């Protein structure tokens, strides 16, 4: 039996247990679902390295550049902290962009997870602001990049110039700007952490999506240890990828002009932000009017926020939406092009390409409301469904069970179909084999055990039956079946209940039929070292009397046991 420490039942620990250990997670999540925890890891790395860097950094216009060089050369491990922090920001954005695109492909933004998506966009915005203000202001590219971006605020009518002056703390990027940017750069990661907790809470309201995009409540497994281990694999792979940049190519993602102290009298030929801002920067530059460019940036985030609410498709995953699948890859290609255009000079042909790519980006969001309805209409009009019905085997209940009985004549000796139930009768000698077959065979896959019950027929000589209620999480029919092992004689644990209840029925006080509560087949298999495919019924927790059919039905706890 797996023991649960009583500490896990205490208030705070029980919450942690319910959300991090025993949390039900779809069993079919792929590695694309590891990027969420990776993003959390990146945030922790940034906070820890940032705190230690802040112990040595001086946010003053005369000392900032030199303090960073002091960290790199004199502080023990300072070079590692600095490179981890700088490249950690890039890693954070890589992980988050992959996380976003995974959500786009598999429809994780769709109902009922709209709040999860919106909180994710809020986190992205906070990350962008944090990265921008943490880029430093006393290096050549950082200084001019900050000058360009902060001066965009002057596009706001009436109060624009005032806002820019307030942002700068003066009439240009200077010491005041450095201090008022450094302070929220320290604060915002903790705001991001809070937003991430809200993001997780919103996710846990309805549970994770899965690659099929279907309801996964019939087949969930505990987060620990399965996805703890799966995420650990992702973390190790990420650590290797991160280490390559930190130790072998720490400056490849940066700009060489940032090793030149800021010079307000010398403007670089091409001002470019860090790579993770390039797509948005390209959209900004594609519109020659400053206000139009700022509005376009705003429209990007408005489109992201609105996506769950403009989606009309009833199919989530792009695996089953062929048109959307192609549009997704075109969107990804478009974003890559925008990123490339963002670091190119503002001249032909890059201007035209940037404008077309920007239109293409917004086209994806514009067509989303129409696309769902178009795909639904195409499915309705197609003959695909009819063709599939003709071709596939096990079309309906009757042919499915006929095929099953023909395949397993020795294990199934009777089939009974009522209005709502399909019952297969077997002998206890073959119960294990039949359950194993039904659970693991490709054409059956009844992988969920809903309940086990015992049935006592007091009027029969062989009184007891054990019934396994199985479910399979597919759209195929049938999806439920009852397996009834008849002809059982002895019931050790049921002895008292069965005897007491049967006294109301028969006068056979001396008869004490017993049913072994361990599965007979399981006991045989255990001696050979092979485990039962499901847990063992242990104690009776409910007893019902069906007077009409003259039987008692016992429902068991499904207990855990060690193998």
């Amino acid at each position: 039996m797996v023991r649960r420490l009583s500490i896990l039942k205490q208030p705070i620990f029980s919450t942690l247990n319910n959300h991090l250990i025993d949390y039900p997670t779809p069993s079919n999540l792929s590695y694309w679902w590891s990027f969420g925890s990776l993003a959390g890891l990146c945030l922790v790395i940034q906070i820890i390295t940032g705190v230690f860097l802040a112990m040595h950094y001086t946010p003053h216009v005369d000392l900032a550049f030199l303090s960073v060089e002091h960290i790199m050369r004199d502080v023990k491990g300072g070079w590692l902290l600095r490179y981890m922090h700088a490249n950690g920001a890039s890693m954070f954005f890589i992980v988050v962009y992959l996380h976003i695109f995974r959500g786009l492909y598999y429809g994780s933004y769709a109902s009922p997870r709209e709040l999860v998506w919106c909180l994710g966009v809020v986190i992205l915005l906070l990350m962008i602001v944090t990265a921008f203000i943490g880029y430093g202001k006393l290096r050549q590219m950082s200084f001019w990049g900050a000058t360009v971006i902060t001066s965009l605020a002057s596009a706001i009518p009436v109060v624009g110039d005032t806002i820019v002056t307030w942002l700068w703390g003066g009439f240009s990027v200077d010491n005041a700007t450095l201090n008022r940017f450094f302070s929220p750069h320290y604060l915002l990661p903790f705001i991001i952490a809070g937003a991430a907790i809200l993001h997780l809470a919103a996710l846990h309201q309805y549970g994770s999506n899965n690659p099929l995009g279907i309801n996964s409540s019939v087949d969930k497994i505990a987060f620990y240890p399965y996805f703890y281990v799966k995420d650990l694999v992702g973390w190790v792979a990420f650590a290797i990828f991160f280490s390559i940049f930190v130790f072998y190519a720490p400056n490849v993602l940066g700009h060489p002009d940032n090793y030149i102290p800021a010079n307000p009298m010398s403007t670089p030929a091409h001002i470019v932000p860090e790579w993770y801002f390039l797509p948005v920067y390209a959209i900004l530059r594609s519109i020659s009017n400053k206000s139009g460019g700022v509005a376009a940036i705003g429209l990007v985030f408005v489109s992201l926020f609105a996506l769950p609410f403009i989606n009309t498709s009833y199919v989530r995953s792009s695996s089953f939406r062929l048109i959307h699948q192609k549009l997704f890859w075109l969107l990804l290609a478009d974003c890559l092009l925008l990123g490339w255009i963002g670091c190119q000079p503002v001249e032909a042909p890059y201007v035209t390409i940037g404008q077309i790519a920007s239109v293409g980006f917004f086209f994806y969001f514009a067509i989303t409301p129409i696309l769902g309805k178009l795909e639904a209409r195409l499915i309705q009009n197609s003959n695909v469904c009819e063709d599939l019905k003709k071709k596939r085997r096990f079309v309906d209940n009757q042919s499915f069970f006929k095929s099953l009985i023909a395949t397993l004549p020795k294990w199934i000796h009777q089939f009974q179909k009522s209005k709502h139930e399909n019952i297969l009768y077997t002998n206890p000698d073959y119960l294990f084999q039949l359950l194993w077959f039904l659970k693991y065979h490709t054409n059956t896959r009844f992988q969920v055990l809903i309940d086990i019950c015992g049935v006592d027929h007091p009027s029969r000589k062989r009184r007891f039956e054990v019934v396994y209620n199985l479910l399979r999480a597919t759209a195929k029919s049938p999806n439920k079946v009852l397996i009834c092992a008849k002809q059982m004689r002895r019931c050790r644990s049921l002895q008292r209940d069965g005897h007491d209840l049967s006294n109301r029925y028969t006068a056979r006080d001396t008869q004490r039929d017993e049913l072994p509560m361990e599965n007979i087949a399981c006991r045989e298999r255990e001696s050979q070292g092979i485990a039962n495919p499901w847990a063992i019924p242990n104690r009776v927790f409910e007893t019902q009397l069906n007077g009409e059919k003259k039987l008692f039905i016992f429902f068991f706890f499904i207990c855990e046991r060690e193998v």
Partner: protein
Amino acid sequence: MVAVRLREVAYTWSPMHQNIMNGLWKDAAVKLRKRVADNWSSALTLVVPVASTYWYAEHFRQEEKLHHRTLEKNHRSG
């Protein structure tokens, strides 16, 4: 939010009766072929626009660099 307590445990075969990850490299060629067959159209949808746009931009810049030769040629012939 409803926290659901799971009432199940995973059973495993003993190490004497199972092989762990024996299928990782098994039929690798078949698996690769299937992956390519399933995803070639998506890969093309991603790669073709990027590659063709990059090629076009490079071609345009090359033409721009050589534009003065065309002008000179037209001037002489004209």
